[in-house]
């Protein structure tokens, strides 16, 4: 057993921190919550790419760095801690690259991985549909074979990527006759094709990072298929475990936590800093305890991946816990701020740069995206505790 990071890992973390602090000092961006999904900054992504930090864990033969998943978690954790605007490369780096490394053809690896590593693939995840959310297997978007092509028809929703999206990862039905889960395949292609139209969804904070995407007779070559035809659902299950392990599930509003700590130290009530109010102290210490335990759930997933195993219930636990934690953090922050907690980021008097307000609203979605907490608990109950209905 060993709970320490290696010297190299400590050094790497420092390197990432130095880089990000330098960026902030130069005023290139301001830390925000949910920056991983909301803050699109192609320039930042290019600079991250230049550091070699996209595709960190991919094999060197494909141009990756061949580094460990713990290294990648360290990178992720610092990106989130500093609220860095990483949304442009996030999904390509976290999800698509891995899928291609795992299931892609040699051609796909040669063609697509470099685009991702250069930070040029702003990827939307085209999974959910209006009637297929938690129940992904019931999706209706069709991919029909036609010679060397597939023809795509249908609609996706909650497709990430905002207005920058130029590539889409798509899950579609390739065999309508097969049992639900057995007729699904994965695709990856550019969105500037005829027949693709995108309509942004404005979220509860006013932000735009999800889209509805419509496919009307969209023709894509068969080379866009990832992995095996009709095996997509099973490939995805794997990728979802991976997606769920993302550090963003615990730390998307880490900048809020830091701001909250500063706020209670600096804000006086009845002449004393809020930090001396025992109820506030106790609440913040409790959050700290929960955050640190959350990091353990999280790093455990990294450890498992570095052992070459696929994370399973461990990533479901990590995600369900992490999103619940973030909601508790946001709720605590807005409560501690009292009337000031109601002020929007646009207000001059807003404490914590409006992040309490923002996170209180945006964290509602955390426990829904990428596996609702209920689905995750079902998974843990079934896969690990072996509890099932008769």
């Amino acid at each position, binding site marked *: 057993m060993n709970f320490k990071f290696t010297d190299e890992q400590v050094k790497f973390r420092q390197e990432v921190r130095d880089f990000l602090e330098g960026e902030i000092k130069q005023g290139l961006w301001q830390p925000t919550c949910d920056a991983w999904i909301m803050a699109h900054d192609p320039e930042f992504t290019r600079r991250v790419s230049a550091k070699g930090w996209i595709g960190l864990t991919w094999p060197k033969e494909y141009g990756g760095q061949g580094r460990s998943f713990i290294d990648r978690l360290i990178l992720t954790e610092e990106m989130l801690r500093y609220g860095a605007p990483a949304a442009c490369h996030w999904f390509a780096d976290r999800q698509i690259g891995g899928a291609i490394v795992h299931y892609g053809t040699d051609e796909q690896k040669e063609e697509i991985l470099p685009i991702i590593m250069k930070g040029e693939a702003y990827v939307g995840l085209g999974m959910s549909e209006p009637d297929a959310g938690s129940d992904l297997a019931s999706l209706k978007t069709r991919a029909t074979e036609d010679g060397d092509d597939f023809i795509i028809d249908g609609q996706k929703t909650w497709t990430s990527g905002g207005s920058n999206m130029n590539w889409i990862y798509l899950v579609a039905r390739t065999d309508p006759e097969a049992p639900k889960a057995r007729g699904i395949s994965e695709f990856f292609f550019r969105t500037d094709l005829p027949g693709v139209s995108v309509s942004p969804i404005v979220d509860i904070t006013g932000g735009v990072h999800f889209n509805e995407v419509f496919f009307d007779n969209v023709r894509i070559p068969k080379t866009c298929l990832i992995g095996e035809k009709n095996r997509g659902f099973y490939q995805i299950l794997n990728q979802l475990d991976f997606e769920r392990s993302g550090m963003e599930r615990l730390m998307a509003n880490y900048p809020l936590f830091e701001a909250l700590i500063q706020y209670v130290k600096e804000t006086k009530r009845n002449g004393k800093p809020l930090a001396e109010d025992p109820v506030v102290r106790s609440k913040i210490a409790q959050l700290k305890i929960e955050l640190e335990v959350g990091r353990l759930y999280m790093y455990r997933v990294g450890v498992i991946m570095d052992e070459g195993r696929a994370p399973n219930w461990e990533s479901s636990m990590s995600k369900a816990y992490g999103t619940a934690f973030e909601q508790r953090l946001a709720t605590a922050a807005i409560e501690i701020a009292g009337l000031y907690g109601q002020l929007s980021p646009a*207000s001059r008097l807003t404490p914590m740069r409006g992040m309490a307000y923002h996170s209180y*609203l945006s964290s*509602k979605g955390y426990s829904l995206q990428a596996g609702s907490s209920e689905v995750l608990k079902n998974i843990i109950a079934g896969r690990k505790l072996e509890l099932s209905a008769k």
Partner: protein
Amino acid sequence: MDLVLTEEQEMLKKMASDFLTDKFPKTVVKEIEETESGYSPEIWKEMAELGWMGLVFPEEYGGVDMSFLDLAMLLEEMGRACLPGPYFSTVMLGGLPILDAGSDKQKQEYLPGIASGKTIFTLALTEASARYDAAGVEAKATADMDGYILNGTKLFVPDAHIADYMLCVARTSDEAKPEDGITIFIVDAKSPGISCSLLKTIANDKLCEVVFDQVKVPKENILGEPDKGWAEVKKIVERAAAAKCCDMVGCLQEALDMTVAYAKERKQYDQPIGGFQVIQHYCVDMFTDVEGARLSAYQAAWMISEGLPCTQEVAIAKAWASFASPRVMALAHQIHGAIGCTIDHDLQYYTRRASADGVTFGDANFYREVVAREMGL
């Protein structure tokens, strides 16, 4: 004990619900939220014609002489409809305090305007400390020959930007106890020296920062007794908190109803999600919270209506509503799934308002402390 509404109350609620549903579809709420004024003068006039502004005022001032409890029922429907505008400010924070503590002359001067919907009122109480205790009042009013000069900054003042008058709470003398030396003034909102700017808030509810810079107020504009205003302020806050609870009951009930309806309609895994036991229990937990909010809010409103002392009952109701509302709304979102997190979905109106309502006139911690004191702790 009897928990049944009177026939009049049922009718009032029904009428209010019909009117508000008709006039305030969420598209209209959204439009109004986005205007600077934050209300629709046309519908405001119609509400006045229905007698809503004068609901609790005696007939001699143009009111219809109904009870505080009746008003509470109306507020519940307003909460349910997400009514935007200065109704609460005008009636609860302006009219009732004047009816309570005003001289005959003041009542005659201001109440008919309120009852007829001509005058908009508000209360300028909280300041930088953002607390509802006496120590938070730092604005100063210094006696001048024919009146007082007001100086200070008030924060989170609802609807001040459209108000004709404000009740402004200020310190008129420095005493050992923060509760002493406080006076309430009726201030003409167009007085020179008043500047007002809108704060951007989660509920888009038009809270303002109001700066009083050498604002002259005539002596006869003191509401109640000089230096002894805190007792009335406490009463205003207590009553407003109880009223806010009724508002919140409407808000949370609607969120619950929407959620239960969605759970019956939304299908996943070939069945309505309301068929899953976990979703059922979530709904029951929400329902239990809402019922607790309702019973405690009605109790508080009824006691105020009867003129009974009810500091503890109000504290219980507001604490409950304030701590229950985030968990009710969290479950509402959890059941609605991603669709509930979009700006175009009706749920978000309730999420934002519930959040604002929770802290307005005291949050759960504030009222836990009140309860502790009432318990003799």
